[in-house]
């Protein structure tokens, strides 16, 4: 068998794909959070709209966007496929299982990922579809910032976004350091640092994201 297909068909290779796509999605989250946090300048969305305009029109970023969707789809399909395969490997469950040997969220990556996926579909519909496939923003009828205010004026949307950021936080709390382990990047000195970095990343990013709908709903940002 060809070495690459042997690699990709193995359990380890399947996980390496998860780790690589996961880290790629993390790098996207960082940029996404950075641009969106411009709303916290509370300047009526001026800086944010500029940032969003740049992200929406820059050719390089539009190309990376395609890669991003491919990465997300690959990560989701492979992730759920692994959940299915792993269930087959442990086909009988224990009558009594203490579960104290590992965190609940490390054992619930499939569920957490599915919650994120449901959120993402709604989220894309809210903003991506509006800005790309309608003339609302390109036609100058509204701005992305104003669109945010409309979307986040509904309580159930705010609650759903905040809840989804909890799923994201727990997915990352395990996923961030797990990706490094999967890629074999383990080191006496650097691994504790990666774990700390992953911990704070998983708290701060979802917190900032969650604060966006909250502060818009409560009128902290005008």
């Amino acid at each position: 068998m060809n070495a690459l297909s042997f690699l990709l068909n193995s359990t380890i290779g399947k996980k390496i794909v998860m780790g690589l796509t996961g880290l790629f999605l993390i790098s996207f989250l960082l940029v996404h959070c950075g641009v969106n946090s411009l709303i916290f300048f509370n300047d009526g969305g001026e800086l944010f709209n500029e940032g969003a305009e740049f992200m929406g029109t820059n050719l390089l970023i539009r190309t990376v966007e395609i890669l991003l969707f491919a990465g997300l789809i690959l990560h989701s399909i492979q992730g759920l496929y692994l959940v299915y395969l792993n269930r087959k490997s442990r086909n009988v469950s224990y009558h009594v299982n203490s579960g104290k040997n590992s965190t609940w969220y490390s054992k619930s990556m499939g569920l957490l990922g599915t919650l994120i996926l449901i959120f993402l579909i709604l989220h894309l519909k809210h903003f991506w579809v509006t800005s790309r496939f309608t003339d609302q923003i390109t036609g100058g009828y509204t701005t992305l910032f104003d669109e945010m205010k409309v979307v986040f004026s509904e309580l159930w949307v705010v609650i759903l976004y905040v809840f989804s950021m909890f799923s994201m936080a727990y997915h990352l709390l395990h996923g961030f350091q797990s990706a490094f382990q999967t890629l074999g990047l383990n080191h006496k000195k650097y691994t504790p640092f990666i774990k700390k970095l992953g911990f704070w990343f998983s708290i701060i990013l979802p917190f900032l994201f969650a604060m966006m709908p909250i502060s818009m709903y409560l009128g902290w940002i005008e």
Partner: protein
Amino acid sequence: MSGNMNLTLKVWRQKNSSDKGRFETYKMQDISPDMSFLEMFDVLNEQLINTGEEPVVFDHDCREGICGMCSMYINGRPHGPKDAITTCQLHMRSFKDGDIIVVEPWRAAAFPVLKDLAVDRSAFDRIIAAGGFVSVNTGNAQDGNNLPISKVDADEAFASAACIGCGACVAACKNASAMLFVSAKVNQLSILPQGKPERMQRVRAMVAQMDKEGFGACTNTGACSAECPKEISLSNIAALNREFLMANLIDQEG
């Protein structure tokens, strides 16, 4: 005798691999806290034999924590409530009078139940047979200083070699993944000069066999290492991932 306990056991009984199986409840009277868990099972089996019932089949051999045979999932943990020991090293003083103790076999598609608490762990043997060896005769043990090996490498190889192949890692893992076992068996050889020349073909063959046996993929939950009687470190799994990646990307022939 004072200090002795009365216990209720719920033990998995299964006639053979095609039987559905069920729990059976047994009352144990006057159990000494100084008995090992397996000795308590000896007492149970004697009772069963005396009343004309079939004794409980369970694996055991050395009864000193080195062979890895004594597979029992006790109250939700492989080898019971204590860390870093096998079932034979578990003593009844770890339980209280009146306790209910649930005992199940290892659960994994790759470890089918043979009878009662005994499972078929020959999948591990086939993984070792696929490459967990050095294929030239390296002769008698040499004078220690003939083969210079750094202390760091020697310690790491020794720590990996402590794996006794018990399968608690597979039993504990929600994916029934054998990665901790396989990584220990790969690393103990690939770190040392005797094992280095074949390391690339070894890791490919052993991982291929692991997958063929139907063990799951690793989600890095860490349950394996937490339940391992020999405290095999998770860094072995990272090293295995690294080794496997290199073997397929860089060295594709050797």
